[in-house]
Structure formats: structure tokens, C-alpha cells
């Protein structure tokens, strides 16, 4: 007994009347000393609030209410117009902070829920001990997990504690949404930033888990820049074969379909195509998979009836998917408890019985929640039903088309209902007169929502009419996209870290997210093309990665074929799906670690400060639509990465816009000596919308300026900023002078001309003999300037 009390070893034999219970087993891990723990491991809601307030004081939240009322409790509805208070005392600005937090909660929960679901399913299939091994070129396997949680994951099972942490934080943040909680819009935004950080963590966990288990591309042979191209577009799908269409974000069911096709040697006999992120991730697992389209074409693709079976999992699936599938006689298999569409759960039923019910249309669809049961049912159903569906005529006949376009009375109801404000009536009128081109052109501009058909006075199936007009082009849509490569390699960061921080690679541009574009998919391609040709590094994910793949140059090449896939100047890189966005954060974090030697473990604030001050990166969510996009952007923002969004994104209500005219907002500290330095506004905003792509291109370039730019780097960035303004706006930007610190910041080729403009237009003093600027800039150029927002990082006191 004494030995037990002293905690020493003891013999069990000889013990009587003893009950031994074993609690949680805590393993001694040799790697706990891989790096000293930083100041903020597993931060709570208030832990990084000071950092948030630094951001919020510079980029003050801007609100554009979509609705002037609050309807969340039974005191309401409350009219908050003019920033009034509701019955609970909340003002309109705080109410909007609350709505922003709500949107970020939904988005973060989607990624965290998806990740936890993946972990659960893949532990069941592969076990907890699947190693995290991304090959010889990736040592820092999980930058966000290390940064936020202070954990270095070795196996997928290690992510259980990551999700435990994230889920607890999410619930606490959701608690703050209740009536009678936060009253400060700044604190709501701080909570939203915290939620955004959790979103980025959850995405990283989700993607790492699926990469590890499915051996998706990493830095093992065949990965990285050498990932193969995959076919994109309706024109790449062979309608003479059985077609399985997968839609959503959670890859295990689609992976099981791929496995079944491989095992039964059906890879060349059955088409497996997808929409949205499931399709991107399926191509990382099953080499014969194709991408039918991004989200904007979901409705149209299903309505063509090309799919013999539709398999859905979660997120971004149309809520009327069952109705759509029934209309075209495509059996529906639902595989996720987040979206069950009122169907019967047939998990664990005999596959023969399920297949028979689907093929004979005794049921329109089934739920199968075990991903390992989906493959057999989906493939056998598709093969058997294909013959029956062959003769379905689902595209309008010429006679039907003519009748419909003539029936249109151009009442304008459809345009009023259309999010893209398409002038459908006018296009119908021209089609009735024999010119189909305007109607066909609407296909790409249309975001595929179907609201128009519900309000048409003549019950015209407008979606089908537009699809019919565009059908020849649709069947010619054959693009190519690089497979999602996941993590950027440490060795690549070693090569480009210095050029990025010093500015000679002008920036990292990240076109990501959904397809609610203001003017069709070509904008996505143009953004990529313009910046890749200017030697920026372009990293894409999600729907933008898919849509950019549809367009070709004069030689018939897609943007992925004309540019390399290395993380280097001029590279066009598909990182992967929505959860793969984490690797873009990770690249910025790795720059801080590998190039600058900053410690990562539990050190979020310092790394975010580093990235904000030095890493010229800019996200472009040109068609952002979902709550996930809101939480993704907010997560980027907390890490110090700005984003340009399309005009629809003003409906998110909140932006983070800086004021270049307020000098006090742009004060940094020189960490070398503690002095305060007023700097130029770089980046000027954290989240800002542009009306058109022509306006966005120069804005994206502007948001790559950073205080740490060398003069050579600044001259490269200024070259592109000015050039993009001249090319697309036909004028010099009114604020280019703000980014000039010294004459060597000016592009060499135009230096004399620009010095003259500074003198004549701005009243600056120039020494023409020495070609030097004597007076005018906000500050001079100091190569030793060590910018920071954090006093605690000052190396020596002044």
C-alpha cells in the first residue's frame, strides 16, 4: 500500500479486494520538444483579441446592410434603420457584426464538420495510425496546426485533439450570437476573425487527413509541379457510356466508386465525373475521373440528363436535387447525413435490392451513409439503367425551342428575378428573329439558379431554352486543369521566400472560391492569365480553378498548359478543393518559418504580423457566394492576407477598408530600434469589392504592396500597378505616388517621366542632377526597416 501511495511500481499478484480502473492514457511523446511552445497555443476567444483590434483599428469594419431589420427573437421584428437599437439594445452596427459571425459560423462548421466526418470515416477504413508523410520535400506538414494548436501531427489520429479544440471554440462563439450577448461590433468582428482562424485550421486538418489516407499528390513522385492534367467540361464526358455524376465536397463515396471501377476493370467503360469540390478531390484519388463543371453549371448539367446516376455528399448541392433528378430520371444516391432530402435510409441493405429499386424507378433515390457501400450500388445502377435512359430526349427539340422563344412577351419578370440581371426577354426576341447568339451567350453569364422559371408568365423553361441555344458550345467545352497538388513544398518556399518578401516576385495571387461572377467565367481565366504573365505566383482552388480551365488561347491551350505548376513566378497552380485553401495560408506561414526563421509553435500573432507586413499575397474571391467563402476570407484576413471580392460580395455586408488619408492608421514600429514609422498604405484594405474585372486587376496589384518591399521589389510592383491601371482604366492610378519612397522605387524605364509627374502634379522636390527625390514621400526607403505592429517584438529599446 505504501508503494502504491508513493506512486512506485507494485505487484498486482497478492493484492486482494482491489478494483483497478484506468483513465485516459497520456503518452510520453519524444517530439514534445520539437520547438519551444509559443505564447498562444490553442487560443480562446479573448486570447488574440489585441491582434484583432490592431487589424480592426486600421481596417475599420464597413457595413452595408442587406436588411434594415433584426428578426431573431420574438421582440421583433426590430427596425434598426439609421443605426437605431432594437428591443434588446443591439444597434445596427453590432447586429451586422453578429450576422457576419453567424455567416462565419456556418462556413467554419461546414469545414470542421466535413473534416470530423472525414476523420471518422477514414479512421474506420484505414485506422488511426495512418502516417502524415508528404514526402521528402515537405517537412512542415501542418503549419496551421502547429501555429494554432502547438501540435505536430504524426498520424491522422492526432487530429482528434485539433477537432476537439475547434469544436469547443465554435460552440463558445455560437453562444455569443444569442440574444443579450455581445454589444460591440468590434468584438463581434474579433469573434468572427477567431472563427475564420478556426475555419483555416479545420480545412488544413480535413485536407491533410484525406491526403494521407488516399495518398493524394504531395512531394512523392508524381506530385507537386508534376501532377497530371485532368479533363474539364461537359464536352469531355462520353454520353455513350454510363455516367456517374458526383456533387459536393466529401470525397470518400466518390473514392469508393473509383475503387469499384478499378477493381472491376470498368475504368474505361464507365464515366465518373463531378461538380464542385468533390470532383476536384476525386481527380486527386482516381485518375480517370473528370470534372463536368463548377457549381454555376450544376442545375444545367443535371437538366441535360447526362448523368445515369447522381451521387451527392455535402455542401453546395442544390436543395431541389431530388426534384431535378426525378425530372430527368437520374436515380439519386445521398451519402451524407447533412443532406438527406427526405429519402429512405438503405445503409446496410443488400446492394441487389437497392440497385433493383433504383433501376426500376420504384424509388427516386436512397440514402447510403457508409461510403464503402456506395461504389457497388452506384456503378451497378448506372450500368443497368443506362440502356433504359438512352432514349430520353431531355434537350429541347428545335420545334419546342422555337415555340418557347416566340411565346416570350418580354415582360421582364425573369430579369427582375435574375441575380445576374440577364436580359432574357431581349435575347428571346432576337432568337425568335433567327439570331441565337445572344441567348447562347447568356449560358456562361447565367449562374444557374432557376429563379427565372418560377416567375415566367408563359411558363417557359428558360434554363432549357438557354441550354438548347448554347448546346453546341457546351458540348465543345473541353478544358484542362492541373490536379490539385495540395501542400506547397518547403524546398519551393526556400527558393521563392526571399523574392516574395523583398518584392521581386511581385506577389502571390489566390483566385479561389465560388462562381457567382458578375460577368461569366471568363473573368476567372483573365485574372489568372494577367498575373501569371506578369510573373506573379497564381494559386487556385475550388470553382475558380475549374472555371479558369475552360478557356483557351488562340492556339487552343488552357492556362494550365501554357504555364508551369511550380510555386514560382509565372506558375499557375491548382492547390485543390475548398479545404485545400489551407495550403495557401500554409505557404505564407512557411515563408515566415523557412525564410525568416520565425518560430511557429503556438505563435499565431507574430506570424500574422509577419505576413501582414511582408508577404505580398492577395486573395481573389471573384464569385464568392457561400458562407464558407465568408469564413475563408475572414480566416485569411486574421492571418494578414487581404482579399478582393466581386460585386455580389457586398451582400456579405461587411468589408475591411483602409483609409489612405488617415495618417495615424498607418503607423508601424521598427523592431530593430523601437521607433515609430509612418508608412504608405500597404495593404490598403483587408477586404474590398470591385465592380468589374477591369477595376479588380489593378486593385489586386495594389494590395500586394508591403512595407518591407526593397526598392527593386517596389519598382516591380509599381510597374504592374501603373501598367494595369493604364491597360484597363486608361489612366494613371490617382494614388501611385503614395508607394514611392525613393527614386529607385520607380520603374527604371519610366523613371524620368514619373519623376516629372511627381514634381508637376504633386509638388515634390526633385534633385534633377542626381535624380533623387528630396521632398514628398511619406517616408524614405530604409533597407534595414524591420516592420512590425507588435511592441513585444522590438529587439532593442530606443
Amino acid at each position, binding site marked *: 500500500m505504501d508503494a502504491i501511495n508513493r506512486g512506485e511500481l507494485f505487484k498486482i499478484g497478492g493484492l486482494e479486494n482491489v478494483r483497478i480502473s484506468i483513465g485516459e492514457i497520456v503518452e510520453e511523446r519524444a517530439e514534445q520538444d520539437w520547438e519551444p511552445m509559443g505564447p498562444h497555443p490553442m487560443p480562446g476567444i479573448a486570447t488574440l483579441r489585441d491582434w484583432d483590434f490592431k487589424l480592426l483599428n486600421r481596417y475599420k469594419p*464597413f*457595413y*452595408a*446592410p*442587406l*436588411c*434594415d*431589420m433584426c428578426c431573431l427573437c420574438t421582440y421583433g421584428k426590430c*427596425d*434598426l*434603420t*439609421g*443605426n437605431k437599437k432594437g428591443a434588446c439594445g443591439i444597434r*445596427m*452596427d453590432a447586429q451586422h457584426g453578429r450576422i457576419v459571425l453567424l455567416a462565419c459560423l456556418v462556413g467554419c462548421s461546414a469545414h470542421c464538420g466535413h473534416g470530423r466526418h472525414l476523420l471518422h470515416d477514414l479512421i474506420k477504413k484505414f485506422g488511426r495510425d495512418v502516417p502524415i508523410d508528404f514526402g521528402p520535400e515537405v517537412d512542415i506538414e501542418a503549419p496551421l496546426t502547429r501555429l494554432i494548436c502547438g501540435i505536430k501531427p504524426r498520424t491522422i489520429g492526432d487530429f482528434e485533439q485539433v477537432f476537439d479544440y475547434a469544436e469547443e471554440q465554435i460552440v463558445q462563439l455560437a453562444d455569443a450570437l444569442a440574444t443579450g450577448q455581445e454589444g460591440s461590433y468590434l468584438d463581434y468582428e474579433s469573434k468572427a476573425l477567431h472563427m475564420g482562424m478556426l475555419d483555416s485550421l479545420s480545412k488544413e486538418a480535413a485536407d491533410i487527413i484525406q491526403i494521407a489516407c488516399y495518398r493524394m499528390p504531395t512531394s512523392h513522385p508524381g506530385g507537386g509541379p508534376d501532377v497530371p492534367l485532368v479533363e474539364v467540361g461537359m464536352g469531355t464526358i462520353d454520353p455513350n457510356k454510363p455516367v456517374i455524376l458526383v456533387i459536393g465536397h466529401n470525397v470518400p463515396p466518390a473514392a469508393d466508386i473509383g475503387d469499384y471501377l478499378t477493381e472491376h476493370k470498368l475504368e474505361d467503360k464507365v464515366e465518373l465525373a463531378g461538380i464542385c469540390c468533390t470532383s476536384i478531390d476525386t481527380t486527386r484519388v482516381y485518375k480517370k475521373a473528370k470534372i463536368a463543371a463548377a457549381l454555376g453549371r450544376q442545375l444545367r448539367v443535371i437538366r441535360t440528363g447526362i448523368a445515369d446516376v447522381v451521387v451527392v455528399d455535402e455542401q453546395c448541392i442544390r436543395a431541389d436535387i431530388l426534384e431535378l433528378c426525378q425530372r430527368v430520371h437520374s436515380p439519386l444516391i445521398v451519402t451524407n447525413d447533412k443532406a438527406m432530402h427526405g429519402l429512405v435510409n438503405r445503409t446496410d441493405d443488400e446492394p441487389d435490392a437497392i440497385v433493383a429499386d433504383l433501376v426500376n424507378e420504384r424509388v427516386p433515390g436512397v440514402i447510403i451513409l457508409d461510403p464503402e457501400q456506395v461504389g457497388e450500388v452506384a456503378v451497378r445502377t448506372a450500368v443497368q439503367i443506362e440502356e433504359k435512359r438512352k432514349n430520353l430526349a431531355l434537350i429541347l427539340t428545335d420545334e419546342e425551342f422555337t415555340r418557347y422563344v416566340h411565346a416570350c412577351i*418580354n*415582360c*421582364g419578370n425573369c*430579369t*427582375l*428575378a435574375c*441575380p445576374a*440581371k440577364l*436580359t432574357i*426577354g*431581349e435575347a428571346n426576341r432576337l432568337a425568335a428573329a433567327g439570331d441565337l447568339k445572344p441567348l447562347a451567350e447568356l449560358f456562361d453569364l447565367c449562374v444557374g439558379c432557376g429563379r427565372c422559371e418560377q*416567375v415566367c408568365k408563359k411558363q417557359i423553361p428558360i434554363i432549357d431554352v438557354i441550354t438548347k441555344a448554347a448546346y453546341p458550345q457546351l458540348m465543345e467545352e473541353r478544358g484542362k486543369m492541373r490536379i490539385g497538388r495540395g501542400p506547397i513544398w518547403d524546398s519551393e518556399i526556400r527558393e521563392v521566400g526571399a523574392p516574395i518578401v523583398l518584392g521581386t516576385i511581385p506577389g502571390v495571387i489566390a483566385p479561389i472560391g465560388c462562381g457567382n461572377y*458578375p460577368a461569366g467565367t471568363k473573368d476567372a481565366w483573365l485574372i489568372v492569365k494577367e498575373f501569371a504573365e506578369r510573373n506573379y505566383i497564381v494559386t487556385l482552388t475550388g470553382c475558380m480553378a475549374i472555371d479558369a480551365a475552360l478557356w483557351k488561347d488562340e492556339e487552343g491551350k488552357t492556362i494550365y498548359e501554357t504555364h508551369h505548376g511550380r510555386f514560382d513566378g509565372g506558375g499557375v497552380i491548382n492547390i485543390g478543393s475548398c479545404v485545400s485553401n489551407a495550403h495557401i495560408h500554409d505557404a505564407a506561414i512557411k515563408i515566415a518559418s523557412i525564410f525568416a526563421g520565425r518560430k511557429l509553435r503556438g505563435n499565431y500573432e507574430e506570424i500574422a504580423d509577419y505576413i501582414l507586413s511582408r508577404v505580398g499575397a492577395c486573395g481573389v474571391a471573384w464569385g464568392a457566394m457561400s458562407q464558407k467563402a465568408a469564413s475563408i476570407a475572414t480566416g485569411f484576413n486574421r492571418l494578414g492576407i487581404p482579399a478582393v471580392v466581386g*460585386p*455580389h460580395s*457586398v*451582400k456579405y*455586408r461587411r*468589408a475591411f*477598408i483602409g*483609409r489612405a*488619408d488617415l495618417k495615424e492608421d498607418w503607423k508601424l514600429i521598427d523592431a530593430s530600434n523601437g521607433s515609430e514609422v509612418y508608412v504608405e498604405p500597404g495593404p490598403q*484594405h483587408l477586404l*474590398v*469589392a*470591385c*465592380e*468589374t474585372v*477591369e*477595376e479588380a486587376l489593378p*486593385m489586386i496589384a495594389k494590395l500586394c504592396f508591403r512595407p518591407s518591399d526593397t526598392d527593386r521589389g517596389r519598382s516591380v510592383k509599381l510597374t504592374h500597378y501603373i501598367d494595369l491601371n493604364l491597360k*484597363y*482604366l*486608361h*489612366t494613371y*492610378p*490617382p494614388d501611385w505616388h503614395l508607394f514611392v519612397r525613393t527614386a529607385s522605387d520607380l520603374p527604371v524605364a519610366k523613371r524620368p517621366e514619373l519623376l516629372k509627374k511627381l514634381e508637376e502634379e504633386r509638388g515634390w522636390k526633385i534633385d534633377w542632377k542626381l535624380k533623387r527625390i528630396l521632398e514628398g514621400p511619406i517616408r524614405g526607403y530604409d533597407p534595414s526597416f524591420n516592420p512590425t505592429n507588435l511592441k513585444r517584438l522590438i529587439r532593442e529599446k530606443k
Partner: protein
Amino acid sequence: MVTEIPFDVANIPGPETGEVVAPEVIGNFISRAKRPLLIVGSEILRDDFFLEIAIALGKKGIPIAATGHSIRGFVENGYTENVQYCNLHELTNCLRDPTWQGLDGKGQYDFVIFFGILYYYASQMLSCIKNFATDPLVRAVSIDRYYHPNARMSFTTLTPRQDEQYKEMLTSVVASIKR
């Protein structure tokens, strides 16, 4: 109470929605404004007539903030004297700050006119001004062919067949300005 149909049919923000007025009413308000500002967007480039109207308003002494890529139209037509490119999001952010000194450094604006901006983008910016630029009041109106519930005043939503009528309304706005 909304009796007009917004161009985005579900864009009904709340109890306080803008008035539909005749063009001359807007013209009179512009005449009396201390510091008017015309804010144009890329949609004015769809038809030369719209650009001509904007320039006509500029020649009446109203400064022009050219948002989106609309500045191109002014540059190509050789009219840039009181025209400046602005990002609309940035501009609206400034309009809600009572201490902002305006594009010319001479003070905040009291009357802003939206013209030719993508409907949903304009509506959101008008919402910000309506709700947060209230002390002092910045009146924001629209002369687009759509009903804008977040504008203090706007036109009604015109059908596709009313192109000529709309152009006459714009001409009336210009004609009724006495400055």
C-alpha cells in the same frame, strides 16, 4: 411602404424605403445642394448617351467620381477636368465619415447621385449611406432606370421597352439643374 418593384425583386430592406420622384425633383435638389457629387459606374459605358449625360452633369459644375472602369469613357472622350477614379467601396466608406474632406479637400458632400452602377452593388452602397451617413445627413439618390429602395429618391423600374422614356428623363434632370 414599398409599392414600387425593386429591380432585384426581393430587395426590400425595411420600413424606410426611397421615394419615386420625377426627374425635375432630383434636378432641383442638385441645384440647391451645397456639395453635390455624381458617382458613376461602368454601366454608363453601355451607351454613349449615358456618358454624354454624365459629362453634361459635370459641365454643370458637379464633380464626378468615376467608379468601376467608367473612367475609361471620360478619358476616351477627352473630359477629365473634374473627374476622378474612385473605388465605390472606398468612396462609400469615406462618405459615411463626417470628417472626410472630399475628393478635392474642401469638405464632405451633402448630395450624391448614383448613376450607372451595377444594381445590387449600388443598392448596398446606398444602404450604407442611408443607415450610417446621417449626421450630418448625406442624401443619396439614383438616376438609374430602376427603383432603388435604399436611395432617398429614385426613378421607378422601367421596362425594357421604355428606353426612350428613360433617356428623356435623364435629359430632364440635366435641363432642370440651375447652378
